């Protein structure tokens, strides 16, 4: 299925592994330090039904206005240590990143009806093209540009491929077990 959605998204349980989503509305950036900060001190904005994006962007300020230069995803597994608590506390609908996440996050997605979606790694320019403006930014002074909590206004932001859904399915598990089989076969034949 292909979905074209507006934020906030309150029915993320409908998404299944393999679905492709394009989002219009707001995307909230949070990576390592931002997760820690928000979990410790609370979120400055309502994150229910939000799209959380693991990304440290390149932005510049010209004539008093922010311009997003590049904004591809960062490696999500680093956030595995606190993503389950983040989902439980803030109830986002879609976590976007690259590379997938682990068991703890998969369980939290199931409990709270959210999904994880992959955005093609490194595609910073393509992402920037779909980001129309910067709505606001929090903790910029303290965390710096790549770690701050940016809120972007986006149009047709995607393709976001659902790789972990709220029904306990992880596409990464499928690829992993297939790759493991391939690995075992290869190792047997190494000379």
């Amino acid at each position, binding site marked *: 299925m292909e979905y074209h959605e507006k934020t906030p998204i309150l029915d993320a349980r409908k998404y299944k592994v393999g679905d492709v989503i394009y989002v219009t509305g707001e995307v909230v950036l949070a990576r390592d330090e931002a997760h820690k900060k928000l979990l410790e001190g609370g979120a400055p904005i309502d994150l229910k039904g939000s799209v959380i994006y693991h990304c440290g*962007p390149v932005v510049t300020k010209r004539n008093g206005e922010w311009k997003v*230069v*590049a904004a591809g995803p960062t490696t999500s597994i680093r956030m595995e240590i606190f993503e389950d608590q983040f989902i439980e506390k803030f109830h986002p609908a879609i976590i976007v990143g690259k590379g997938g996440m682990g068991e703890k996050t998969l369980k939290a997605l199931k409990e709270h009806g959210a999904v994880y979606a992959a955005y093609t790694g490194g595609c910073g320019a393509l992402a920037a093209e779909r980001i129309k403006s910067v709505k606001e930014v929090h903790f910029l002074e303290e965390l710096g540009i790549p770690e701050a909590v940016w809120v972007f206004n986006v149009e047709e932001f995607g393709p976001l491929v659902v790789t972990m859904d709220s029904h306990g399915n992880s596409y990464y598990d499928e690829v992993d077990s297939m790759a493991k089989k391939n690995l075992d076969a290869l190792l047997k034949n190494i000379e």
Partner: protein
Amino acid sequence: MIDEIVEAIRRAETQLSEDTMNALKKAYERETNEMARTQLKAIIDNFTVAKKESLPMCQDTGLQTFFVDMGYDFPYRAELKNAITEAVRRATKEVPLRPNAVHPFLHKNSGDNTGRFVPYIHWELREGDDVIIHVIPKGGGSENMSGLYMLPPGVGIKGIKKTVVEHIFRSGGKPCPPTIIGVGIGGGADLAMTLAKKAAILRPVPSRHEEEFVAQLEEELYEMANKLGIGPMGLGGDTTVLDVHVEYAHRHPATLPLGIVTQCWANRKRKVHIDANGRVEVI
């Protein structure tokens, strides 16, 4: 020369090197997995946008890294380090680049991509009176999937193959495949890693080592890596690596260092050549 180094950084960051671009296009034509094709298509679309808009192709503009290949008699050698550092400061504002130099204990970002030992400059000397500066900003996600294995020499070539294939398997989708894998064998721990980095980034894609035995090893590792089925971004498919490059040094009898450096598809590299008369060219 500062202007030209800034320009080389800009090109490295905004225009994918031609060899890598061609390799990705070929991979897209060959790829049979649908999910993999959407990823390769997004990558190709991304570098079209980046080039057109002169935007960094990835938001991780890397740790600013320079391999300097310098003739003993290059007359401007005393100026090079400052020129490179100043070029990094300017490129950070002008390209622009993400500030990627963080104090490891204080967590403070320097804001201009410079700091203690960065930009990282690796110096090598040779005969001659000119210099080639390899401008190779290196992304953090793929660098995280690098590794050093101090193998017992007894495992031999079979152990090397096994370790490399297992390493690529464990890296999965994390280093943004399709990747280019650099393998450094021998020397000490540091040399194995340096050889691996040079093999991954400085060599053209695709290319084979000039020694037949090493070339065969590269071919075999390349075939095996792509049989893993990890695919672009780890979403499955035929294209896990674009190439595997191997370099080696003689080793100590008691050690067999194996360095692996992973380079993501955003293979950023340009060269600046400066001759003895100060003529500067960006390649």
